[in-house]
């Protein structure tokens, strides 16, 4: 039996994470030497090289998810600090971004396996830091208090020495949150994408757009 099978979800130890990472990274290099198409290293599999492209997918369809209830609370709170509701669009959690991040860190591919460790450790750090500063979990803080922590880690090049790792996590988490948000219909509308609509002709830039560029 694979020792990692007995680990509770979300508590992937570093050794197992590294093993997955190595196995996934080795797939590319090793394929060259595998005799007669021997099976790649064991572990959760991805969606394969020929998935059905026309059906809608949901987190959890291909590989089991990771977040514990506690991790999910922190993840959701942080998503919504990064993308809060405003007059134009709702918060990230309203369009399923925490589910997407859970799907992402649970995937068996090398990039996602790397992010898994970063995100799980980062979420734990957020909670530890919240308890240290305010005696409560991150999700239980009000937004101004949440922001005092985030302000220390929101820009890695200017983060203090003690915050470097947390800042790297925050940066990655912000990318995942914004990417998860702006790829939804709500997010696409917010950011100004109005395509993916069949039209009989391509009209080109509007007079307003041309004027904006000084090309009218």
């Amino acid at each position, binding site marked *: 039996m694979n020792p990692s099978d007995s680990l509770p979800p979300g508590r992937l130890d570093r050794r197992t994470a590294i093993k997955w990472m190595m196995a996934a990274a080795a797939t590319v290099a090793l*394929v*060259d030497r595998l005799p007669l198409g021997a099976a*790649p290293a064991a572990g959760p599999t991805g*969606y394969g*090289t020929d998935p059905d*492209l026309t059906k809608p997918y949901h987190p959890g369809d291909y590989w089991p998810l990771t977040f514990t209830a506690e991790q999910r609370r922190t993840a959701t709170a942080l998503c919504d600090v990064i993308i809060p509701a405003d007059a134009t669009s709702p918060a990230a959690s309203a369009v399923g971004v925490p589910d997407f991040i859970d799907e992402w860190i649970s995937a068996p*591919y090398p990039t996602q396996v790397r992010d898994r460790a970063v995100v799980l450790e980062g979420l734990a750090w957020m909670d530890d830091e919240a308890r240290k500063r305010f005696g409560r979990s991150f999700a239980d803080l009000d937004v101004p208090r949440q922001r005092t922590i985030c302000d220390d880690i929101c820009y890695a090049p200017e983060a203090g020495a003690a915050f470097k790792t947390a800042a790297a996590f925050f940066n990655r988490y912000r990318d*995942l949150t914004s990417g998860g948000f702006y790829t939804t219909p709500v997010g696409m509308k917010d950011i100004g994408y109005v*395509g993916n609509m069949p039209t009989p002709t391509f009209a080109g830039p509007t007079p307003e757009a041309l004027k904006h560029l000084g090309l009218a």
Partner: protein
Amino acid sequence: MPIVTASKTQVSYDVIVVGSGAGGGQTAYTLAMEGVKVLMVEAGRNYDPVRETPMFQTNDQAPLRGAGTPDKVSGFFDATVDGGWQVPGEPYTNASSEPSRQFSWWRARMLGGRTNHWGRISLRNGPYDFKSYSRDGLGFDWPISYEDVAPYYEKVEMLVGVYGSNEGLENTPDSAPGVLLPPPRARAGELLAQQRAKKLGLPVIPIHRAVLSVTQDAATIPAKLHPGNPAAQRILAQAMRERAACFWATSCGRGCSIRANYQSTTVHLPPALATGNLDILPDAMVREVTLDENGRATGVLCIDKVTGEERRLQARVVVLAASSAESVRILLNSRSVRFPNGVANSSGLVGKYIMDTVGARLGGQVPLLENLPVYNEDGAGGNHVYVPWWLYQEQKAGRLDFARGYHIEFQTGRGMPGLGAATAVAGLTHGAYGQRFKEEARRYYGSFVSFAGRGEMIPNADSFCELDPTVKDRWGIPVLRFHWKWSDHETRQAAHMQRTFADLITAMGGKPDPLAADGARAIEAGGRIIHEVGGTIMGSDPKKSVTNPWCQTWDVRNLFVTDGGPFVSNADKNPTLTIMALAWRASDYLIGEMKKGNI
């Protein structure tokens, strides 16, 4: 005749075509329309773009928001099936471990091959491109000239449908009047680049792409393509009517269910199948060309991937169009007492002089494009304009430190957001998050531009492929081992590309990303542009080439290669249109030889 299984193939065919992409599709089309009985053998599965293409799916409907993974390298919705830089169980190797000497080989295992996902850029080689050695003493001349190929460019453009314009520029051929479809209007970022490029001397003109900007003229084109053949005309007219014009949405890389762009599976194969002269055998991996005691090809030996059994398929003629490197592999694996080094290899040149395209890229951010009034910029699912190579005279005068040219492809505008839609915002704003992040994301979205150079590589003796002495694929077939080396001409060209793009972005009022330290770092690795050609080069001397000017192997009269293998040089122009033109030309010749009884 239809898609068949191995047990349903006929006893014998006139022609076996190995491969179903641009070369195989065109060959099978031309032959079947003229009454030749063809069996097409494809290593991948059957694929139906009309049913399988994810046309309007958004990234949130895909696993991982559509991001690329080792299973789907170009993103979840990319059309490629069972392919990418690696095909499970079907490896290839590189002889060197040095990073600069790697070759990456993109394959697809599906009907239509790489034509299902390609960029549809369809540029003609110009007169210079066929006589490069005569112009600068490097590489080789083709045994044919632009005039030999021009009529076939015309035919292919009419058949597949190509938008673009005639500009009368040097070595950038015009098509005959009425052949090209009208080009779409330029997008805002493309227009800004066009205006600012003027003072740099860069001509920004409509690009040529195999996308129907309007429906094809089904009433007149079929008679031009198949004079004196009313049955073919009728079938083609019907096939053309079944293709819709572009509806200006969705990326071409997903394929096209309304058949508005060219892919072999929507343009070549439906009419070819409708003639009743074509059988298609998918899931069949060709191992070698079989020969009789006189050294004539008798067919192919393949592995039925469904049952794992070996099958012998018979025909009067064998045409390899498996992709240039895969065709090399089949030839080298066809070893016998008569041909100990592989078939058609008396010159020793099978696998030699493989080429890719020189690629380098640079992006930047353009403040003028921030907060651009919103409009739908999807357009034709790819470039609307480009810059053809413009420095022929400077090069001739010796003012450049590299020998051949490149063209520039554009990436501008507000495409459908992917995972990276707002990742640059954090850096630009020194760490914005929250309400401010949302405002900055709106401001910056669509303000990024990126330019990609696509340049000519000169063939060299250090870039070749051969059989790996030990590694075999899951079918027990020896695999290819690649050797690769760029010359200074390519790396200097890559550095020139980046400098040009930096100048252009600056001229647009933008801030270019940092340039690579030198050309060797700017250039993309071998094979990465997926313009794999050469390896069975054509020529007029059997000692110095693998095929004659008709893509017919010198050593075996009834064996042809109609993929990119016979390319003698790899002009900056993307190779697909030329592959199709040469395949049509070779097929016409083949039909003539069969009629004369020479084959």
